[in-house]
């Protein structure tokens, strides 16, 4: 080292360049001014789960059939489901209670992956802070249910794929049902009605 202190001067030059650069280069000033500027979330971004429903009515259009796979697979076990029952006490394929405690949820997306009915999906809403940690951090069914069009608005590619899969599934089932109906045309009225009720449950 011939000139002691030259390294310090070099460092000062770097900081001076950054000081001046922060006024002219956008690349050097990457901070988002949050409430005014919103982050542009990538499609894959995820926050907490929500439940998708088809059509306009959340209750009837609900895709969830209360199979409880997500409840079982959830790593921190933040999902709580009670299956609905009709007056006779017979189980209906619909959850009566579906709660997600997002103070426990770790946004891992495993519930989405394991759901066989394309019902649970990840939301992108990140403004969830509240003064009430028990009320607003436990999402119940009305808060969780969001329409398919909302799903399309946040994850367009994924939602389109899902719809395609559901459509293909439906077509396959319809074809199978039609074949079955054609095969045993007259005698089995009961099985036809049962299969149509299944279709109603999952249009």
């Amino acid at each position: 080292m011939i000139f002691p202190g030259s390294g310090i001067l070099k460092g000062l030059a770097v900081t001076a360049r950054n000081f001046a650069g922060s006024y002219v280069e956008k690349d050097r000033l990457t901070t988002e001014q949050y409430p005014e500027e919103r982050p542009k979330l990538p499609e894959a971004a995820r926050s907490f789960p929500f439940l998708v429903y088809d059509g306009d009515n959340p209750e009837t259009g609900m895709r969830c059939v209360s199979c409880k796979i997500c409840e079982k697979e959830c790593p921190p076990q933040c999902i709580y489901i009670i299956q609905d029952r009709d007056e006779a006490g017979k189980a209906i394929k619909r959850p009566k209670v579906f709660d997600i405690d997002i103070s426990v949820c770790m946004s891992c997306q495993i519930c989405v992956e394991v759901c066989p009915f394309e019902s649970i999906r990840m939301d992108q809403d990140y403004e969830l802070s509240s003064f009430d940690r028990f009320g607003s951090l436990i999402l119940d069914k009305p808060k969780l249910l969001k329409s398919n069009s909302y799903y399309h608005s946040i994850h367009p590619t994924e939602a389109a794929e899902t719809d395609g899969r559901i459509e293909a599934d439906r077509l396959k089932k319809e074809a199978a049902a039609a074949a079955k109906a054609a095969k045993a045309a007259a005698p089995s009225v009961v099985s036809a009605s049962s299969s149509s009720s299944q279709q109603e449950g999952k249009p």
Partner: protein
Amino acid sequence: MSFLPSLESPQTIDVSLGPQHPSTHGVFRMNVTLDGETVTRLQPVFGYLHRNHEKIAEGNSWLAAMPYTDRLDYICPLTNNWAYALAVEKLAGIEVAERAEFIRVITAELTRLQNHVAFLGFVLGDMGAWGTALMYAFREREKILDLFESLTGARMMCNYMRFGGCRCDLPPGWLDTTRKLVDGFPKFLDEMEALLTGNEILLARLQGVAPMTADRAINGGMSGPVLRAAGVDYDIRKVDNYGIYNRFKFRVPRGTVGDCYDRFMIRVLEARESVGILKQAIAVIPEGPVVNPKAKQRGFRPPAGEAYGRIEGPKGELGFYLIADGSDKPYRFRIRPPSLINLTLLEELCVGTKIADVMVILGSIDIVLGEVDR
């Protein structure tokens, strides 16, 4: 009013650095005995961030352990994912999809880049440089985190790797953005080096501080950059050739003195090597499925047996030792965290140095408390 005497000798002062202290990298605590400014005894205390990770994993399904690995070394979630996936694949003998191997290498090397630049910033912060280097490092790290977010959906808690591959394919345009970032990265490293590596104050603070001989490093179980700074040529990417690392050309830098400056510089040099690996991997990544279709994720039940899968994490050897009993839960789930084991020589390194050096030595080991305490 007393002059705060220590229990051992009236001339020394006992200071408890941490768990709430500006530069203990989280909730780490050191009980330090000082003679003036010189450290005569140092007792690390950890466990403040213990989360029972291994036991939680043993109570959950194999898949459910994956998101928890993100939280080990939360600076580099993707390498943690890989280490666990690797261990499970070894246990169950699962083939990994070709494209997924490339994605794993790319994400792991990106993780290494952002870990090493963040390390440079943190060490400078420990030296009192008011976070300037840290902010530059975070400026670049942010871009890498954005890439992670668009790929995996989360910036830090990625939960991306799966048994036999990865969870989802690269989004369109991702590789181009990555290529641009990787091409621009050496320029940023040059800027960091101009700011830091010639600085006389930094050199005086780092050189000759807490040297570690190769022997001591090996006997102490060191791994990763700390071991290589001591002059040992040991990189698991070369030793195990896990994944597809044997297809890439890269060099393993190693230090000569093993002091804080070597530990610092090794990271800079490794970051440059990672850029080279990334360039090669991006150029030749093949098309194809990202996950082995035969591999089961939900309800995964590996045959009874045991396996130890390890990778060269940015901080050192990260290993998962798994025992399966044929059920859907691991029978034993054990993590070998590099941060904890690299920390074991802390007292030996610190005794005899000044208190200001303790922070730098701690910083130069590069620990993350999430991994130390698990």
